[in-house]
């Protein structure tokens, strides 16, 4: 009777499989064994599996560290049915019969089918150039001193390094969990999110400048940023893990929740703290972005009664 021995890794994932076409299988560090493992805590001749009708009997060959039972399947004492797990040294093994049922095939998500397309230089390069140019333009329009490349390049590279670090992180996660890094894909995703983030930020600031909704505008800005982060996380997870769509969304929602919590904790110290300085909207944009028309100075000052009333109310 053939047996499959799976060496289990992180989270019970199968790391390595051995198939032996024999009723008697020896496991150990010595090269004479049917299954040779390299864990130094395993004895040269550690154990022998003897096939029975209902499974396998495990015979400890006087090993130094013995055999631990992690999970025993089957009802008969001393007989381990297919799917049982044991631990020898620091290595977890699953004993599986060749007719053992496997999990249902998972449907590939559309994004996963596209993922190989994302993982191409032809996608990454234009995105990279677009982000690079956006960044350069952003620096240029906010620089009021003489343009010096020696000041600009560190700023540019700094931003790019942060994005690259993010891409490397997700590639590493992918390599560990799925054995696929998708570095360019992850990089492209982050670049895309950066572009989206810059564009919405700019749009919202301009909108807020024109329509005068200070608080509301700030909230919208935060919500959009969180939405972008949520979508980005889901996409990163899709490339780097085998999570189902549902659990991916839950995971990203948790990550966004974590970010919100961190943000709140950082801000919490400032809650209720008195500021002797006025906090007002100081946004000013070039006339090209100004669509709003003004009202008369008198109308503005006439409505200031409400402002004084608000100040009065706050000290009651």
């Amino acid at each position: 009777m053939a047996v499959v021995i799976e060496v289990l890794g992180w989270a019970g994932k199968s790391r390595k499989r051995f198939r032996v076409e024999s009723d008697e299988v020896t496991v150990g560090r010595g090269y004479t064994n049917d299954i040779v493992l390299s864990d130094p805590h395993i004895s040269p001749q550690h154990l022998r599996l003897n096939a029975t009708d209902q499974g396998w009997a495990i015979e400890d060959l006087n090993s130094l560290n013995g055999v631990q039972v992690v999970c025993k399947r089957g009802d008969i004492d001393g007989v381990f049915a297919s799917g049982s797990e044991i631990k020898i040294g620091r290595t977890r093994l699953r004993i599986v019969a060749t007719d053992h049922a496997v999990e249902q095939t998972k449907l590939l998500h559309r994004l996963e089918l596209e993922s190989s397309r994302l993982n191409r230089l032809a996608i990454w390069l234009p995105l990279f150039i677009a982000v690079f140019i956006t960044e350069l333009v952003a620096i240029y329009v906010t620089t009021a001193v003489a343009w010096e490349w020696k000041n600009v390049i560190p700023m540019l590279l700094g931003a790019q390094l942060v994005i690259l670090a993010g891409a490397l992180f997700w590639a590493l996660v992918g390599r560990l969990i799925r054995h696929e890094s998708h570095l360019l894909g992850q990089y492209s995703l982050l670049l895309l999110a950066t572009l989206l983030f810059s564009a919405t930020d700019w749009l919202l600031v301009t909108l807020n400048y024109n329509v005068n909704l200070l608080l509301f505008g700030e909230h919208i800005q935060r919500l959009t940023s969180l939405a972008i982060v949520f979508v980005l996380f889901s996409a990163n997870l899709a490339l780097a893990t085998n999570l189902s769509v549902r659990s991916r969304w839950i995971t990203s929602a948790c990550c966004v929740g974590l970010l919100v919590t961190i943000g709140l904790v950082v801000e919490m110290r400032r809650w209720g703290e008195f500021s002797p300085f006025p906090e007002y909207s100081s946004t000013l944009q070039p006339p090209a972005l100004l669509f709003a028309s003004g009202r008369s100075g008198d109308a503005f000052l006439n409505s200031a009664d409400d402002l004084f009333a608000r100040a009065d109310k706050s000290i009651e």
Partner: protein
Amino acid sequence: MPTLTRQSLSLCCFFLLLFNTITAAADVEVARQLFAENRSAILQIRLIDLTSGSKSAIGSGFAIDHNGLIATNYHVIELAASEPDQYRIEYLTETNQAGVLTLVDVDVINDLALVKAEQMVSQPIALASIEPEVGVPVFALGNPLDLGLTVVPGTYNGINTTSYYPRVHFTGSLNSGMSGGPTLNQQGQVIGINVATAGNQISFLVPTARLQQLVVDYQQRGSAVTEVADYIGSQLQADQQQKMTQLLAADWQSIALGQAQVLQELPPFVKCWGGSNNTNSKAQFLSAERSCRSEDNIYLNAGFETGILEYQFFWLEADKLNSWQFYAVYENLFGDFAPGNRATEDDVSEFHCDHDFISSASQRQSKTVLCTRAYKDYPGLYDTVFLQGSVDNSDKAFISHFTLAGVSRENSLRFARRFMEVSQWR
């Protein structure tokens, strides 16, 4: 010829020196005499913290009648006025006799207070009825830094005409602890009450007339002030009303700043200063500024002062910057305005702000911000910050700003209306 000149010069110096020695000797004699005659009339005023039983603050004071009435500065006894349950006012005579004082009247505008002992503590000092001539030697008395009674000779330089609240300009060194002590003329009469210093030899006194007025008010009322906060509130209200009426009735002249017209100096309320970055060779844009500020602070407590008026104008030109870069600089500057007076959470609310675009036939489109915070102990008074910046030109900009501290809503808005009319870039 050259030798002669040198000779006459050295002769001159000699005479000056001699003359100086003679007058200095005369001053020393007067100072000695004044010190000997009045030493017992100058008291140390101490604020005793009831929990620790120790003195928290000291100043000086002097008797002004035979019934134990003593004059000092409001800022000396302020802790006892705001926290009567936590502080006691005591006096200490030159012979180390101590006693308790009660607060009977204050004038926060002129930083004066009247306190009263149970009985006569010392011989009163007479208040001078006429103003001395500018240049005469006068002598400040007090307890600087708790070092014991000290006499500081100096010169009377008249009543400062560049501030709204009258203050005697005294050329002599006042130090902390001398606050509330008298400055005497050569006849030993009080010509002012020591109040503030502005550094090297420049010091200020409250004119005696203010003290006389306070004494008259107190005598007419005939009893001690009870609700001190309300009383101070009504003084602040009346003062801002009078000051703003006078200010708004004044002739507001304008002066050019760049292409804009801005409000000229308004004596005696504010003094103006200006500057620009024209000489800075690295500057990428042009910035010219004019800042006007009153030097009249009304002391309310250690963290809170009011009575300030300031206004400021900026003219900016893009020069080497494109409009995006120019607006980034402009935005930075626009976001950086704050009121010029100090206040803490115990004194005022947070600022509340409104903003909107303003434009009319006569006015360029501009972003206008109005912020205000209310006084907690003095209802009906506010600190108001106004800020306006042009938004319709891509390579030029004009900012105007004012802060009014301790002013009513009506007066703040009347000032804002007038300010917007006068300070404009048409």
